[in-house]
Structures are given as structure tokens and as C-alpha cells.
């Protein structure tokens, strides 16, 4: 095939759980080029955050991601507490970490299911999602919600661990640990799955450095990037974590890293429940936050979550900037698919555990010839005129 044949993936495509647009140039089944266009699910959350007060913003920012919602609230609360010069009590910090780790389990199980589905291995998909229900139930009992747990407050947490909840979490963790061991066995020993993952999308440590990938994607290439270890926050100083890395850098390594670090999560959850510090759940927080700016980084299930928060001394933030790990990892997909087959596209894409809605921060408006872009002023004027017409 001499001329260029383009396979569009998205904005609506069964492989994508959220809208994004990829174009892959193919020669037969081999990919020769790739491009991405994002911004289909831009929701203007950063702008909306500037118009609400600090407390309201927790609810808003928690809804950036439907899977790892807790870490968003956590990053925001830690940042604002730092600005206000307040620190949450140790018990609250431990509970924050406890929920963050439960959420990581839920996120990784969800990912395992999605990845198995992309590989056409629906049995693993169904079983992984069945087992995910265990941790969802535990989270529901604990916080009252299956997603968007809403456990954080500025200066503390809302929910406490009672003996009943602790025993349910212990049971859930015991069950899940056994299942994780089984799945780890499946992904390393099942030949049909290994055929689809071993040696696919290999990323060397140098490439990982250059592309700036984060989280499990980087750790699968032997690059140790884990905020929980390099810059411990909340209770990770008291309950340290052993980072898990793999050196192979292929898809299988990404499977192994994600599943292996679950064992660390199980260990950490047990240890937090065993040695939960006594004391208050929250501390007093001023309504207005001192002027200043800060950076808050936490380890989301997908990698480093970065918050920049600036306050001008009022009860509303002056600026909140969120950078989710998907943005860092997405570029690696475009590099890794070159030279691979079409069948590997969904697998390599899912290997970074993409989350487009969390990632979309801007929209670029292009006409169907791909040329005209709106300037900020023109767009603003258009908005004003549009609403004036309907008033």
C-alpha cells in the first residue's frame, strides 16, 4: 500500500472508554505514524474552581476523575492546608492514606479488567471486576460512597474507622490478596495473554526519562518514580512503602508492576489498621487562606498528580492548576506504537491506563479542514455575543 491509509480511533470508538481522537497511519497492519487530539471532555473545572470557595472546591475537584477521585481531593487539601499553615491530625492523615490505598486497589483492578478486555480476554475482565466489588463494598461501608468518597475535609477527614469497618477491610484485603496472587499467576503463565503482552510496547529507561512518563508506566521500565517514596506526604512518612519496579519495560511488565504494588497496598492497609494513631479527626481551619502559592504532589494510581494552588488571601483560590498523570504518559503511546501492529494499539494505549476526562485542560477549535483556530479574544467575544442573543 503506497498511499497513506489512516485508521481513526475515536472520538467515539469501542476501544476508548472516554472520547479522545487518535489517527494512526498504517501500512497493511503495521503502524507508521500516530497523532492524538484531545480536549473532547474539557469541562472548565480549573476556571470553575476560581469561582467557588475552598470548601466547595473539594467537591468540585474530587469530580475531576471518576476512578481516582480521592487523590484529587487529597492533593488539594494537602496544598491548601500547607498554604494556611494548618496540618491535619495524625489519625486523619492515616485515614487519608488508608482510603488512597483502597482506591489504588479499586483502580488497578478496574484497569486489569479493561486491559484484559482490550486483549480480547473477557473472562479475566469479568473476574477482575467481580473481585473489584469487594473493595468497592468496603469503601462504601467506610465512606458511604462507591466512588467520589468525599472523605476529605480541609484540615482532616469526615469518616472514622470503627471496629466493624476495620474487620470488613481486613476481610476484603485478605480476599483480594489471594485473588491478586492468582491474577499475577494468570498474566505471567497464560500463554495466549502473554503472546499479546510480552515484548509489546517496550520502553527503555532512557525513553521513559525522555518521554517523562510517570507512575506504574515508568516503574515498569525500571525508572523509580513514586511520590510516596521520593516525597512522602500525609502518613506515608510513618507508614513507608517499598516501591515496585520491573526492568522489562513491555506491557507484561506494566501488568506485573500494577499487580505487584497491590501487595504493598495490602501490607500498608493492614499496618495502618493495626497501628492507627489515636486522636482527633480534624483540626480547625480558617475560612480565608493566607496569600501565597504552593505545589502539592501525590501519587495517584496512574502516576504523579500535580496541583498548583495560588491564594490571594480571600476565601476563594486565585488559581488552581491540575496536571494529571495521563498527560505525562500519553506521549509515550504515540512513540511506542510506531512499527507495531494495529492489534497492539488498544493494548499499548491501555498500558498507560489513560484517563482522558481528567487530563483535558484545554480545547483547540479546528474547522473540518484542520486550519482555523479561535483566539482567546475571539472565543470570549463569541461567548458574550451568543448569550446576549439568547437573553
Amino acid at each position: 500500500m503506497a498511499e497513506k491509509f489512516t485508521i481513526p480511533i475515536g472520538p467515539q470508538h469501542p476501544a476508548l472508554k472516554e472520547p479522545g481522537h487518535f489517527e494512526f497511519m498504517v501500512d497493511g497492519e503495521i503502524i507508521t505514524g500516530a497523532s492524538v487530539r484531545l480536549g473532547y471532555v474539557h469541562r472548565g473545572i480549573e476556571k470553575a474552581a476560581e469561582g467557588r470557595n475552598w470548601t466547595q472546591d473539594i467537591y468540585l475537584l474530587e469530580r475531576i476523575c471518576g476512578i481516582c477521585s480521592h487523590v484529587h481531593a487529597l492533593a488539594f487539601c494537602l496544598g491548601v492546608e500547607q498554604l494556611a499553615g494548618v496540618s491535619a491530625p495524625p489519625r486523619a492523615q492515616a485515614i487519608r492514606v488508608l482510603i488512597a490505598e483502597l482506591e489504588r486497589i479499586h483502580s488497578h483492578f478496574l484497569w486489569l479488567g479493561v486491559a484484559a478486555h482490550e486483549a480480547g480476554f473477557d473472562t479475566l475482565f469479568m473476574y477482575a471486576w467481580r473481585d473489584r466489588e469487594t473493595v468497592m463494598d468496603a469503601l462504601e461501608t467506610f465512606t458511604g460512597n462507591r466512588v467520589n468518597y468525599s472523605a476529605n475535609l480541609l484540615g482532616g477527614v469526615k469518616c472514622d474507622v470503627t471496629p466493624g469497618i476495620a474487620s470488613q477491610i481486613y476481610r476484603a484485603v485478605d480476599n483480594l490478596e489471594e485473588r491478586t496472587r492468582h491474577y499475577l499467576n494468570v498474566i505471567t503463565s497464560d500463554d495466549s495473554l502473554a503472546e499479546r503482552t510480552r515484548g509489546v510496547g517496550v520502553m527503555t529507561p532512557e525513553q521513559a526519562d525522555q518521554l517523562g512518563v510517570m507512575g506504574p508506566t515508568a516503574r515498569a521500565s525500571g525508572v523509580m518514580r513514586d511520590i510516596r517514596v521520593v516525597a512522602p506526604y500525609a502518613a506515608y512518612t510513618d507508614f513507608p512503602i517499598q516501591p515496585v519496579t520491573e526492568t522489562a519495560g513491555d506491557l507484561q511488565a506494566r501488568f506485573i508492576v500494577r499487580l505487584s504494588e497491590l501487595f504493598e497496598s495490602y501490607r500498608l492497609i493492614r499496618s495502618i489498621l493495626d497501628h492507627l494513631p489515636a486522636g482527633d479527626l480534624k483540626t480547625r481551619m480558617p475560612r480565608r487562606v493566607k496569600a501565597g502559592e504552593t505545589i502539592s504532589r501525590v501519587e495517584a494510581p496512574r502516576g504523579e498528580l500535580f496541583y498548583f494552588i495560588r491564594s490571594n488571601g480571600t476565601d476563594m483560590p486565585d488559581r488552581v492548576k491540575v496536571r494529571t498523570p495521563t498527560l505525562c504518559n500519553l506521549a509515550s503511546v504515540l512513540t511506542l506504537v510506531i512499527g507495531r501492529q494495529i492489534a497492539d494499539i488498544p493494548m499499548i494505549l491501555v498500558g498507560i491506563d489513560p484517563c482522558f476526562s481528567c487530563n483535558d485542560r484545554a480545547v483547540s477549535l479546528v474547522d473540518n479542514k484542520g486550519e482555523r483556530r479561535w483566539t482567546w479574544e475571539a472565543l470570549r467575544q463569541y461567548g458574550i455575543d451568543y448569550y446576549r442573543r439568547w437573553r
Partner: protein
Amino acid sequence: MTLLQMLIALLIFPGGLFVLVNGLAYQWARRKLIARLQNRIGPRWFQPLADTIKLMAKEQIIPDGVNALLFTGLPVLALTGALTAVLYLPIAGLPSSASFPGDLIVTLYLLSLLTICTSLVGLNSNDRFSVMGALRTLTQLFAYEAPFMLALLGPAVVARSWEISQIASSWNWLIVTQPIGFGIAMIGLMGKLELPPFDAPEAETEIVAGALTEYSGRGLALFHLARAVELVAGLTLIAAFYLGGLSNPLDYLLKTLLLLVALASIQTLLARLRITQTVGGWWRYGVLLMLAQWLVIMLGRTL
């Protein structure tokens, strides 16, 4: 055979109504089995029938720039091929309604008609996913077709006949003496029906629905029916050749359902193969194993 008998054979049993109902029931059984194996609930018993009725009633959208005659005609041809093949098979364990020396070859080609129609509609559909799906369907056809045919010709050699009814009435349990042939026939049938792990031609996470992406309404329903009929035809053929023939309806039900359980189990156990892996696997292992089997059959016959 009188005209009435011919009409009955064509429209009611075994050709038309019976095999369609049988096919839909087996599709349901397969889906239900897989669902239970995957820890799901699965569809209700009438789901495939309900889907068919719904699709039949819906509008068929013919995309711009396609040949409308081929677009509407090829699904009919696919179903016709599958239904015609059924006439030569001992459906429900009763003697086949038509036969002549050499009908095995004709049946095998009629069963391939579905695959060929699928790839033709894909190439006709003027859609990138359809074209990719069609190419994959054809590629896969070239991979499994030769070993699949060889696997079904093995019993013919043993029975010294090319006539399905004669081969079936030799009542040989060839699964014991030709296990390789049996395995390859089963896996070839899965390739023919594009069931996992050979569902690369319609891998939804890569190329949406493959060659049938642009199909809706009647055309899609006809393809689904053709596939259901082909499932029954394939299972009947394998049961008759390898599992000691089909002597009565109960025998038929037991043996074909047994094969269906095996099919569903394989389907549940494996992840999807890339198209290169499918082709590589068939030519590297499938064909060689089949040739080894043939060598044994030939040696057995001469000695």
C-alpha cells in the same frame, strides 16, 4: 422425491425453519454457557430470536458510495449458502434430505460462502474498519481453510467415500484414531465462525465490528442467522464424522451439545490472537499436524 417433500425439506425440515430455530437455540446455549463460565448471568432463552426479530424490523441503512445490490444481496447469499449446506447433513440425527457422491466437497465450499460474503461486503462497504475487517477475514480464511478441509477429508478417506451420508453411516469413533483431525476440525470451526480467540476480524477494540461495521437491520440479521446455521452445520458435521455418527435425535442432541460445551470452554479460556499469530499458528502447527495425521492415515491404508 415429490414436490411437496422437496418444499418441506427446503422450508421446514431440515433446511429452513428447523435449522434456523436450532441455530438460534445453539447460539443462546453458547452465549449462556460462556456467560456462566465468565461469572455473568447471560441472556434469556429467547434473546437471539428477539434480536433477530428486532433487526429484521429495523431500517437498513445503505451507506453512500456502495453498490446497493451487493450490499443487500450478499447477506442473502450467505444465508442461502449455509441453508443449502444443511440439506446434505444428517441434521437431528435423521438421514440427510439430499445426497450425491462428492457432496462433502460441495458442502465445505457452501460453508465457506459465509466467510467470502462477509469479506466481500466489507470491501464493498467503503469504510476503513470494514476494509480492515474484510482483509483480516480473508487472511484468516487462507489460514484455517486448508487444515479444516483436510481434517474433514480424513474421515472420508477412512470410509472410502466422498458422500456425507456414507461417511456418517460408517459409525466410526474417529476421535480415537484421528484425535488431531478432530481437534483441528473443532478449532477450524471456531475460526470459521470468528469466535474468540480467532475474532481478530471483528475485534471490537481495534476495528469496531470488522467487515459488518456498516450493517444494520435486515442485512445484519441475515448474517447473524447465517452464522447460527453455520454453527449447527459445523457441529453436526464434526459429530457425524468423529463421534460415531448420528443415529437418532437424542444422539444428535447429546453429541452436538457436547461439542458446543467444548467450544464454549475454549472460547472462555483464551485471549484474542493477533491476525499474524492466527496465520502463523495455523500454518506452523495446524497444517503440519494435519499432514502428519494424513501420513498416518495413508500408511494405515497401504499397510
